[in-house]
């Protein structure tokens, strides 16, 4: 039927350089597994940590090189337009790598303490980081789905690895089943997108939507709705957030930090690429829906947080309300809004990782009651001070990066004339502040019965906490460079 030469396979041009960061990560994962299986006895934690760290750092330098390439030559895409190489993808790659390094440091001591097999944990961590990068860079919905599953499946296992704790297993199963459930929505959304536009490639989708005026756009609407459901689940936006408190509470603290930061950031990366970049011509359709989601998420996150007595649950609801702020930025469907979302995600990632570093050091017992923090201000003043700084930043207090982030989000909403949402964001910020202040109050005001809590401290943890606190405070005073970085990282869809 076809001439043979038409059947001849032409491999798409591949920009290997752009794929290098995730290849380094996957290579490191394989290396860890290989060497640990060759080692006669239980292999050391240090080896795994050092390998992960060096992979993250090497990949980071590669991304810096990529950033300058993009700056010089402009954005491009690779593998038949399936993989974007733009400021956006490199921004997230850098963020993910920073979070990866931090999580590797945090888990170092944690794995030893809890007796979890280090090579497997680190291999999974590296895989999920690679998945997150793929998700942020994918220009094709199928590739994006691949990244999302690589990220999620690794996380399911990482949660369950603490197998002696039944809470961890429960969390893993909950997250797995519900995650699979939401993946189905996402997949259906991808299928309908293909049905409506004839392609899963976002570049083609965008070009098609720009060129064609629909007489009947039911299918496109349904596609958008289902994609939104799948990604909202990943970023824990209400009413798809129910899993978050239970899973955050049960998961090991370093994994919770990783989920709260990177699973969320990657989800938002996909959301922005699909909706802001590909469905740009239909923003009047999806923007109101995202606005509703943002509002519900803000309210649920702030209101539910103040009812909690468990610190990890509090932080789970706080991370839900943070998702609400990012959604406020997303719904403005503007370059400013996207830059605000990127800025928010960057600062939030570091804040939340620092916070969970402290939480992880406070012990790994099954529950994490607020009373455990009573008297910390006296028994461990430096730790208490660091936690205070991070919590104030999450509350959005001026002179911290959290303030600048919230300010940017709200100003994007205002310039988009979403006054109601901007007002809601401010009010919920106040309500949310109550929860953060409650933790701070407990540390400083409430008297402890005994000698005070005695967190298990390790130099890796202190490094992370110190680093994130310094970053948070410095950025509160000198936000300019990150603002400019975020402004240059708005996603671009280019045929490659």
């Amino acid at each position, binding site marked *: 039927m076809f001439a043979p030469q038409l059947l001849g*396979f032409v491999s798409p041009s591949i920009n290997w350089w752009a794929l290098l960061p995730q290849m380094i990560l996957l290579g490191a994962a394989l290396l860890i597994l290989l060497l640990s299986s060759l080692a006669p006895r239980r292999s050391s934690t240090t080896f795994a940590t050092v390998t992960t760290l060096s992979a993250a750092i090497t990949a980071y330098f590669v991304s810096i090189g990529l950033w300058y390439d993009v700056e010089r030559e402009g954005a491009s895409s690779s593998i038949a337009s399936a993989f974007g190489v733009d400021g956006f993808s490199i921004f997230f790659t850098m963020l993910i790598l920073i979070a990866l390094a931090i999580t590797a440091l945090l888990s170092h001591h944690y794995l030893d303490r809890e007796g979890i097999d280090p090579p497997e944990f680190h291999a999974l961590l590296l895989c999920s980081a690679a998945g997150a990068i793929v998700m942020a860079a994918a220009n094709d919905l199928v590739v994006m789905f691949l990244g999302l599953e690589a990220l999620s499946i690794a996380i399911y296992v990482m949660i369950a690895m603490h197998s002696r704790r039944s809470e961890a297993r429960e969390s893993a199963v909950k997250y797995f089943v519900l995650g699979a459930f939401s993946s189905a929505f996402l997949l259906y959304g991808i299928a309908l997108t293909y049905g409506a536009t004839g392609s899963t490639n976002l570049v083609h989708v965008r070009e098609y939507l720009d060129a064609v005026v629909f007489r009947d756009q039911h299918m496109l609407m349904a596609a958008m709705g289902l994609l939104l459901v799948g990604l909202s689940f990943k970023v824990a936006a209400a009413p798809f957030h129910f899993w978050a408190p239970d899973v955050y509470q049960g998961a090991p603290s370093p994994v919770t930090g990783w989920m709260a930061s990177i699973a969320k950031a990657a989800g938002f990366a996909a959301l922005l690429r699909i909706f802001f970049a590909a469905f740009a011509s239909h923003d009047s359709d999806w923007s109101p829906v995202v606005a509703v989601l943002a509002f519900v998420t803000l309210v649920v996150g702030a209101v539910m947080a103040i009812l909690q007595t468990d610190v990890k649950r509090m932080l789970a609801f706080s991370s839900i309300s943070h998702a609400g702020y990012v959604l406020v930025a997303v719904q403005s469907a503007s370059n400013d809004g996207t830059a605000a979302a990127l800025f928010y995600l960057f600062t939030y990632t570091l804040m939340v990782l620092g916070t969970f570093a402290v939480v992880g050091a406070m012990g790994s017992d099954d529950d994490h009651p607020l009373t455990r923090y009573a008297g910390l201000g006296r028994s461990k003043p430096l730790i208490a001070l660091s936690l205070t700084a991070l919590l104030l930043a999450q509350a959005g207090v001026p002179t911290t990066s959290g303030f600048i982030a919230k300010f940017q989000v709200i100003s994007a909403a205002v310039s988009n004339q979403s006054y109601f949402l901007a007002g809601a964001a401010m009010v919920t910020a106040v309500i949310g502040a109550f929860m953060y202040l409650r933790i701070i109050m407990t540390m400083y005001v409430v008297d402890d019965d005994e000698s005070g809590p005695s967190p298990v401290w390790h130099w890796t943890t202190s490094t992370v906490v110190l680093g994130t606190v310094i970053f948070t405070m410095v950025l509160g005073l000198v936000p300019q460079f990150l603002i400019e970085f975020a402004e240059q990282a708005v996603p671009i869809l280019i045929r490659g």
Partner: protein
Amino acid sequence: MSELLRSYLTVGIFGVAAIAMAGAMLTIARILRPQRPTRQKLIAYESGVDPVGGDWAQSQIRYYVFAVLFVLFDVEAVFIFPWATRLEVYGLFGLVEMAIFIFILVLGLFYAWRKGVLRWV
């Protein structure tokens, strides 16, 4: 009705027809067959072997591990078969790709072996 939905209509008609056919066969059989139940006849059919114990039986966890490993390595065949049919067209590029793919799987198998998963204890 759009073209797409019309094609789904065909699927729907097929489904209805299938259910109707199966239902009709069972109903007709029920009406036609003689019904003289004995105790022996009501025992669940187990390929001619008498059933022992309850229907909630536990099986060895080792089977589970093996089953998972089997599925894992079975799935690779899904990728290898289509590649094998078009081997010349993909050329060296395809060969290298497949080598990497199989290498990673072998590495997994190696890891499982070293961790003692394959040992039947």
